């Protein structure tokens, strides 16, 4: 059962109304920030089935893949190889794989049409500096041809599990029921669905968090505040018992209101350029705004620090038709989808790394339910496939980046649904990060988070945390 079990540490039962602005602004820095025992995990779920094969291009994996398969299977959609004569072409990572050029916008030597301030090298730059690990041919053992089934199975961390794996992680890590988990969007994905009474907070619009008092005539701020306070006191009365699902969620929402509104109302100037401009992307800027909200909440001095965050990114990754080639102006559907992902992830890293307290203390994981069919269809698109890339993005040496992980299955033998064969269970990648950076043991992974996974040692992506003497011991740990 999902509820909003977040204890409100700023909330004063004797003064249930919104505190005056003067005191709200004066939130003290908390020594728990960032969390002492573990990194902040940001899970990005690309809904719709990302075409990983055109993001991470197997241009030189073996002599036959490229010439006999990739170009032949995708006669119009294939991304030009780094050694081709095309103006816009993939950029070499390791002599075997190359990145789509729009995942490298702003990198030296990459042709960037239709430029934007967020073009600072994207995923390529992260890879070069060792902050990006790419795992190819990942997937779910429960993969089906259905988005909805496969997404749910990934959210649950296994087809037969009860509740979301992120919620179970918080259980396993011994986080208190009030640990802050945020989805900066209007709905909360099933990965955070909890059976233990913990809850997540949806923040769809940080500038308008909480009730908005709307009138046609001028209503003074004072009057609106008084009306809202009176209503709020009555609502707190009626939600106070938390006796059922409705009351439980409502009670916590009202309790956390002050804390989150304090943060969100103070405004936020990021230290990097996010890409939210509709002329470059196709999701109305949701993804960039969502990442910015996460950075804002993480860096703000919340009494209850942010532990995990997740974003569903959309905007048309289910590219059954008119997927789009690497066009001259980077404006095709697929180019925009990749630009949105790459530029905003890079911006988030730059934004977080700008704060010394966060360096080396966050991990971003990008997953999608499945990859796409190895060959293109008659509509200039690709249908639902199987294996796909996963991205793990770290900071200042908390992961071993700059490499492509995973066992490359080749393009010669088709996998499920004629997609890429799955050689790495996506949960093993997550388990790597959870055990190295997120404060849980392999036994907890196998018993609680991903029951039945039998994880012993992983790919070695996460660098195990060292006890850091310089941080004040967190009060709640």
């Amino acid at each position, binding site marked *: *059962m999902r509820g909003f079990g977040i204890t409100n540490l700023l909330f004063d039962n004797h003064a249930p109304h919104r505190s005056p602005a003067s005191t709200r602004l004066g939130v003290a820095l908390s020594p728990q920030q960032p969390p002492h025992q573990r990194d902040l995990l940001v899970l990005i779920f690309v809904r719709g089935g990302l075409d990983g094969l055109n993001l991470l291009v197997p241009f030189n994996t073996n002599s036959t893949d490229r010439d006999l398969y990739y170009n032949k299977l995708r006669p119009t959609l294939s991304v030009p190889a780094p050694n081709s004569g095309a103006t816009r072409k993939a950029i070499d990572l390791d002599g075997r794989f190359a990145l789509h050029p729009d995942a490298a916008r702003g990198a030296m030597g990459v042709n960037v049409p239709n430029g934007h301030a967020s073009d600072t090298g994207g995923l390529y730059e992260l890879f070069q500096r060792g902050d990006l690990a790419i795992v190819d041919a990942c997937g779910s053992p429960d993969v089906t041809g259905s988005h909805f089934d496969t997404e749910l199975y990934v959210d649950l961390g296994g087809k037969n599990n009860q509740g979301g794996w992120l919620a179970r992680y918080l259980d396993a890590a011994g986080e208190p029921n009030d640990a802050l988990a945020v989805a900066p969007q209007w*709905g909360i994905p099933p990965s955070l669905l909890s059976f233990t009474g913990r809850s997540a907070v949806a923040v769809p619009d940080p500038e308008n968090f909480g009730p908005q008092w709307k009138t046609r005539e001028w209503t003074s701020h004072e009057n609106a505040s008084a009306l809202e306070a009176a209503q709020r006191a009555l609502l707190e009365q009626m939600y106070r018992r938390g006796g059922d*699902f409705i009351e439980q969620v409502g009670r*916590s929402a009202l309790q956390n209101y002050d804390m989150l509104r304090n943060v969100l109302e103070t405004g936020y100037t990021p230290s990097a350029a996010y890409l939210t401009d509709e002329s470059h992307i196709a999701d109305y800027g949701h993804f960039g705004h969502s990442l910015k909200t996460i950075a804002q909440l993480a860096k703000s001095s919340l009494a209850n620090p942010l532990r995990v965050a997740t974003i569903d990114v959309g905007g048309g990754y289910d590219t059954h038709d008119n997927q789009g080639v690497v066009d001259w102006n980077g404006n095709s559907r697929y180019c925009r989808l990749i630009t949105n992902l790459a530029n905003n992830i890079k911006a988030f890293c730059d934004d977080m790394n700008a704060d010394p307290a966060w360096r080396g203390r966050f991990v971003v994981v990008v997953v999608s339910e499945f990859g796409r069919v190895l060959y293109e269809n008659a509509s200039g698109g690709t249908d639902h496939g199987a294996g796909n890339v996963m991205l793990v993005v770290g900071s200042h040496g908390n992961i071993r980046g700059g490499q492509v992980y995973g066992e490359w299955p080749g393009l010669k033998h088709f996998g499920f649904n004629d997609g890429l064969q799955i050689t790495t269970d996506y949960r093993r990648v997550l388990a790597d990060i959870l055990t190295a950076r997120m404060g849980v043991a392999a036994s907890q992974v196998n018993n609680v988070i991903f029951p039945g996974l039998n994880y012993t040692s992983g790919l070695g992506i996460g660098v195990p945390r060292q006890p850091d003497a310089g941080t004040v011991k967190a009060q709640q740990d």
Partner: protein
Amino acid sequence: MSIDSPSTPPGEVPSLARLAYNRLGFGPRPEDLANLSAFDFAGYVDAQLAPESIDDSACEAYIAGLDRTDPQGITVPPPEASLAEIEDYRRASEAAGGWPNGNLQRHLWTVTYARALLSKRQLFEVMVDFWTNHLQTNFQSRLKYWEDYHVIRRHALGNFRDLIGASAKSPSMLYFLSNTYSDGANPNENYARELMELHTMGSYSRVPGPGFLTRPNYTEEDVHTAAQIFSGWTTMDSPDDAYRFNAGRAWPAHHWQEKRMWLGNDNYYYFPYGGEEQGEQLLDILAEHPSTAYFISFKLCRRFISDFPDNFCPDAIEVGAQAFLSTHGDIRATVRAILLHPKFAASWGQKIKRPFEFLISTMRALGLQEMINFLPDDWHDALGARFFESQIEMLGQKLFEFPAPTGLPDVRFAWWNTNQVFGRWTLANALISRYFGDQTEVDSAPANAALDRLIAAPATATQVIDRLLDRFVGRGIDAQDRSALIDYLGAGNPQATVTSASPRLRPVIGVIAASPYAQWR
């Protein structure tokens, strides 16, 4: 506590009449509450299942009288418009620099919300919403406008085979699931898959017994074959994007051949050499497939009875499926069997209101007679259509916009979180301000005749609270909560006289609408 046995609200259980108005419609209007003791549930179900015999002329007149002038001054065609009229409108709107898809969608919002608010054919409107989501398409294409009237409304209480047959040829569906581009040589399998997974059988068998939710209803090969069968069902090269079977797109070597599909059976279904008739045959098979009957009954039970019908009311799923099978997909008979099953009457606390139901049930409880017209670009108006559109968007249930072919979720976890708490609170306040006048001062408020009627003013604070609770909740609430409301409204005096000019009346209505008691369906 498990996901399958969610906590239900403590306290009193409302009457069956209340449950009927909440679940078979969008909540009671004041006039519905006048004679509740004489309510005959079975009679109400049967009357609602015969919408054509319900006089709805007042609502029809309201719809016909709506201003359809778009921001460019062009008239949006009426809901029953033909594809040619919609195409004419698109051309005119685009020539004027307008946004035809958006304007068509906005008018369809107005019409849909107005019907939910005013129509006496409440169950019909619920079924329209049900099928709109079951056969989800959206305003990526203006053709959704045509589909709403000519496919969904036409068959909402008709026969299931007719409904999916019309949907398969609906231009909006052909675009939404890409079938219009499908080609026999290299078919696009998007529609073929969702037809089987989402529209008819479901991925896994839903027939009780061995194989329940474990035996696949189709193989990947079946999906490819179905895609071959539907190649050539297209709008390409057709006037006004109407459906046609275009054998030229269905390559002879691939389309025009015998086919076999297994569809979860040991023996195959045989499709003789043919063109469009193979698709009709497949639709026949899918409509008669036992898993389809159970899947449709499951979804109807989820809509009307419980978020978790497999656990809460498997016997209601069974009677619905049997009715579906024995009548060959008669939607009325299926719905009737489910609603008259005893589990319906015992299902209080199993469903919560989604934003659509919250919006309309709040407006109905307030006795409102007029819907917001969503067409004008009234950005200047703090309580205009654009404000309500943004608020509805934030609540996540903007009609005809959902991008996934599943349709919007119909379980509580998707519809109740921090965002919903604050959003519904905001929406309730905004509705009260828009319709009953501003809440400009704390110590005085403008008199409003409609608001006085709503509370039967003048009345005491106690009487007003009880009256409002009757409108919005309809069951006894916690005694302390009731006292707190009375205490606030009467400023400490339960006998204080309240009218529409009382400054605390509007805020207290907003609180009741946003209270936990008013969120259950």
